[in-house]
């Protein structure tokens, strides 16, 4: 793989240290970008408490992106071609079924959550069996299953919007210690994910499988268990995110997760994970999720039209990625 060629980087030691460190931690750029957009938005914030409110909102909405982003990150880490496109459908299905079950009854919150998780589990299992048993490429497998999940959601509830139980709505829209509850949940999820990737053996296995599945298998990694775990946990996280989002926004919609398909991929890659697999990080997902929220807020606040807004979003994403890239060729 390595070419001992081409890149005789005669690095000036020391002077480049900072740059070097930054390029190794690609997510620093995502934080810089998020910070810059935040400050740029503040320029037009009029009300006194606006700065805090904006940050509060950013953390609230970033949380959902983080939860699904973490799941997507694990999937993406599995290597080229691995991506879960069924996240929106899993979110919708989990939210629909669990809200329908709870039927605004506050006593059923826990079983409701269990149902959301269970639905996620089922979706993950289904995805994995398509990938593993039928050996359908993950992109297509998850795309196809998303259609099925969506049909199930339509069939089960015909698009009726059922309110979440009062307690649940209060919890998901509320905050604790000045931080939105949704963000606490996302934080918990990301700390867990970080531990898995950085500390746990399973994390090593995921990373190994992502780099070279065959070599991983020959190196004693139970690759099927790894892939199973990854796809299932991604779907479970999607289920949880759907449950939370529906509770937060006052009910499940058939189109509620739509934007999280691109969003989940975007936060993973802007956050600095190598899409080639085998190298991922959790802090970057937070930065990217905040960034994705703030950029829309910023462009909206500046009163830019949809066309310009989309264009600038694209340009900024590309610039962040270019800036975050290592100099020269990848190995």
């Amino acid at each position, binding site marked *: 793989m390595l070419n001992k060629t081409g890149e005789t980087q005669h690095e000036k030691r020391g002077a480049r240290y900072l740059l070097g460190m930054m390029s190794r931690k690609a997510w620093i750029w995502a934080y810089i970008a998020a910070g810059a957009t935040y400050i740029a938005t503040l320029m037009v914030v*009029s009300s006194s408490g606006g700065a805090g409110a904006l940050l509060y909102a950013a953390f609230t909405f970033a949380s959902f992106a983080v939860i699904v982003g973490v799941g997507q990150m694990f999937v993406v880490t599995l290597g080229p071609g691995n991506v879960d496109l069924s996240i929106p459908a899993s979110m919708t299905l989990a939210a629909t079924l669990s809200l329908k079950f709870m039927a605004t009854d506050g006593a059923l919150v826990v079983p409701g959550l269990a149902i959301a998780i269970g639905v996620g589990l089922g979706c993950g299992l289904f995805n994995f069996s398509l990938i593993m048993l039928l050996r359908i490429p993950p992109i297509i497998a998850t795309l196809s299953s998303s259609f099925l999940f969506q049909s199930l959601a339509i069939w089960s509830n015909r698009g009726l919007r059922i309110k979440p139980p009062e307690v649940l709505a209060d919890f998901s829209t509320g905050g604790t210690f000045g931080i939105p509850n949704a963000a606490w949940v996302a934080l918990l999820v990301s700390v867990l994910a970080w531990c898995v990737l950085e500390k746990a053996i399973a994390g090593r296995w995921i990373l190994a499988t992502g780099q070279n599945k065959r070599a991983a298998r020959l190196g004693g990694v139970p690759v099927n268990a790894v892939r199973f775990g990854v796809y299932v946990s991604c779907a479970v996280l999607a289920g949880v995110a759907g449950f939370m989002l529906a509770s937060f926004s006052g009910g499940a919609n058939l189109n509620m997760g739509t934007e999280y398909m691109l969003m989940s991929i975007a936060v993973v890659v802007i956050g600095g994970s190598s899409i080639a697999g085998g190298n991922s990080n959790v802090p970057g997902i937070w930065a990217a999720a905040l960034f994705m929220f703030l950029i829309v807020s910023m462009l909206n606040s500046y009163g830019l039209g949809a066309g310009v807004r989309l264009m600038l979003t694209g340009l900024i994403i590309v610039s962040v990625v270019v800036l975050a890239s290592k100099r020269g060729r990848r190995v």
Partner: protein
Amino acid sequence: DTSEKKIALSNNYAGNSWRQAMLESWGKVAYMAIEDGHVAAADAFTTSENQATEQAAQIQNMILQGYDAIVVNAASPTAINGAVKEACDAGITVVSFDGIVTEPCAWRIAVDFKQMGRDQVKYLAERYPEGGNLLEIRGLAGVFVDDEISAGIHEEVANTDFKIVGSVHGDWAQDVAQKAVAGILPSLPEIKAVVTQGGDGYGAAQAFAAADRPTPTIVMGNRRDELDWWKEQKDENGYETTSLSIAPGVSTLAFWVAQQVLDGNEVPKDLTVPFLRVDQDTLEEILAETPVGSVANVEYSLDDAKSLIESAK
């Protein structure tokens, strides 16, 4: 006599409660019409994604299947014109509603979306003659309906003392709207009212509540949860607003119009249906009729269609 005729519904999207209610209304009227021997078949088709290309292909398939009339809720007013033209050329009656098509050979049951935008502002101008700041929640960029409603709003605002201080795209999705509003709120001065495109009102209310800002007058879009919230506020503090949207049952109207065309009746190409409006007084009444989680609805009968056609002549 149309008892041998087959009608198809080409629907481009099924992913929200409005569309689900629309399909349900269609299903009901289709069942009844077949029972009563008005038509031989009335099948509904939905594309898997909200895409003009897919819908065009769907219409082409309907041509192949030999339907006599195709009722379309179009993904784009122009992008399926090619397929619509092909259908007309094959002798098929095409009736578009809600999302209408511009192809001249097709019938259009239009809702004046521009008017819908204007009416929102008119209502607000009545309530607040002194004007104030408005927040606009738009739909999906690049889509006809979004452009029309927004144009109506902007046109009317020019005649009043209102000022649109912020505009966000909510993609007609509750969660997206809520998110976009939450993101722009900190940068906005005090908001007098929010103009919407239907279905975003509840999300906007939530976002205002989350940001601890006074709730402005939010124009609603007839969704049950919006009406519920309105009712709640009304009972609590006498909150006043209005709610308007196109009734999903317009699909049934389109069905009858298609049947009338097939029957050989002369039907003008352009028909307009009024939108369904909920006011402070009619709120309770309509709330009682609207199923939980759904949309306020009106279904049309053959006679309704006939009188509409008469009045348009």
